[in-house]
């Protein structure tokens, strides 16, 4: 399987089939590991990086895994394809933009992605649709065990798994969910959620993680501490306490909109449809915002004629790299705005909304 094949599918996590997928887009578990007896990335020589890369790639491909896996050598991949992987949440922006020997192992269904030579030697990632934190952790845990059977990881009794940055020390575990919170934004309560998250030591980020803004009412919420608690404790607090509260708040806000301000709600949705149907130029941010409101409309059943998987597909295809692959050639900013608007008009125009 190759990168280009990915564009024909939507990736498991976008299938909108998981629990609570009206609000939770996806759940993600990430583990950071470094191979013992090698320096961390910032001090590894070119030769060492190549060695690490080859070693990790061979083990990842050679592991007996339930999911078939293919490998992408990022150093030999062109910019649009690298961007494509970022848009599909398979690599971080940092990894795509990085330099030197590095890559990523991806399962054919995109549920698993292991970055090699990013900030740490290995970054294991498991994605699931909707709220499926424990399933994602279980798979990540097993993958980690399999890797540890083959490779010795840098570890100390006191500090646990050793990472390049002390913010990942200990468990090396980052759990996060991608939430769609348009109602909390519309009722003006989203600020309260941010403050509460900060008090609970959670990081709130945009669609593409570290250093990105929250566009289109999508928020990535993750734990900030990785040391001093066991993996189960981190998971339990996140999955059983924190996220349900935020979900409840969004559900309540949607209820408020529906019961007390249905006109304002439909107005927002209607305008979004209007722009999507008739605009001649569309930036990716604008597309995201409109699709976000359209998604709300579909979920709250105020819009018919369109289903969630189609909307998720649209989210992806309007992203810059996906769009260019769709059209079949590189496009500059202005050309992309036009192509995007055209694509959306065609897709939405076909449906009676």
């Amino acid at each position, binding site marked *: 399987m190759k990168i280009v094949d990915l564009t024909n599918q939507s990736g498991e996590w976008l299938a909108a089939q998981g629990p609570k997928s009206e609000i939770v887009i996806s759940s993600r578990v990430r583990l950071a590991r470094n191979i013992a007896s*090698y320096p*961390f990335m910032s*001090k590894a020589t070119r030769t060492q990086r190549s060695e690490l890369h080859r070693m990790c790639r061979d083990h990842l491909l050679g592991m007996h895994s339930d999911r078939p896996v293919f490998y992408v050598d990022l150093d030999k991949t062109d910019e649009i394809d690298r961007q494509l992987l970022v848009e599909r949440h398979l690599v971080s922006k940092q990894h795509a933009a990085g330099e030197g020997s590095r890559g990523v192992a991806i399962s054919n269904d995109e549920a698993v992605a292991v970055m090699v030579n990013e900030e740490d030697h290995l970054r294991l990632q498991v994605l699931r649709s909707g709220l499926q934190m424990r399933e994602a952790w279980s798979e990540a*845990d097993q993958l980690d065990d399999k890797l540890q059977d083959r490779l010795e990881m840098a*570890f100390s*009794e006191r500090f646990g798994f050793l990472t390049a940055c*002390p913010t990942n*020390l*200990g468990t090396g575990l980052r759990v996060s969910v991608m939430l769609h919170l348009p109602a909390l934004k519309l009722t003006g309560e989203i600020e309260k959620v941010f403050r509460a998250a900060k008090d609970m030591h959670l990081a709130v980020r945009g669609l593409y993680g570290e250093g990105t803004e929250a566009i289109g009412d999508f928020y990535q919420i993750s734990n900030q501490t990785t040391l*001093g608690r066991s993996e189960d404790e981190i998971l339990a607090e996140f999955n059983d306490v924190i996220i349900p509260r935020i979900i409840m708040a969004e559900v309540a806000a949607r209820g408020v909109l529906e019961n007390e301000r249905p006109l304002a709600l439909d107005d927002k949705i209607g305008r979004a449809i209007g722009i999507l149907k008739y605009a001649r130029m569309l930036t990716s941010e604008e597309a995201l915002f409109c699709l976000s409101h359209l998604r709300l409309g579909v979920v709250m059943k105020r819009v018919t004629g369109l289903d969630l998987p189609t909307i998720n597909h649209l989210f992806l295809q309007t992203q810059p790299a996906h769009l260019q692959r769709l059209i079949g050639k590189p496009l500059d900013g202005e050309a992309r705005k036009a192509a995007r608007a055209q694509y959306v008009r065609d897709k939405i125009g076909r449906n009676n909304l």
Partner: protein
Amino acid sequence: MHSCERCHKTATVHMTEVSNGKKVEVHLCDRCAQEAGYVQQSHVPINELLNQFLKAHAQVSDTQTLRCADCGMTWQEFKDTGLLGCAKDYELFLNQLQGVIERAQQGADHHTGKTPGKPSAQPDDAVKLRKAEITRLKKELARAVEGESYELAAKLRDQLRALETT
């Protein structure tokens, strides 16, 4: 040279009291002065003051010249980049890192999760015991400090350090 009024050893505490316009000089040794109830400021003998000062100074220059033999990392480099160079750095820069780690991890300072070779099972008994011991020592240390038993506190602190740095 005065002798202690009570025990005739060398007097080191000299007080001048003025009462009813009369000046009275009192000379006592350290111990008798305490026993007599004269409030002693907890003072640090000069030589210990000097020692502490020199140690602190040495730490600063140590921090600046310390360099990892394996990867070449220096503390300054870590401050600039936020990234460490290799596993050994966690030992070499332990003193300086402790504060950084506690701040980044909301006060946590040791790992309680999964260990290699033991698939998500509980860490083994030896590890559990050590962790329980560390917790106990910490409680005792806090109590000793509260009760101003500084000698005891110092002993406990050294025991703790020995346990934590294995």
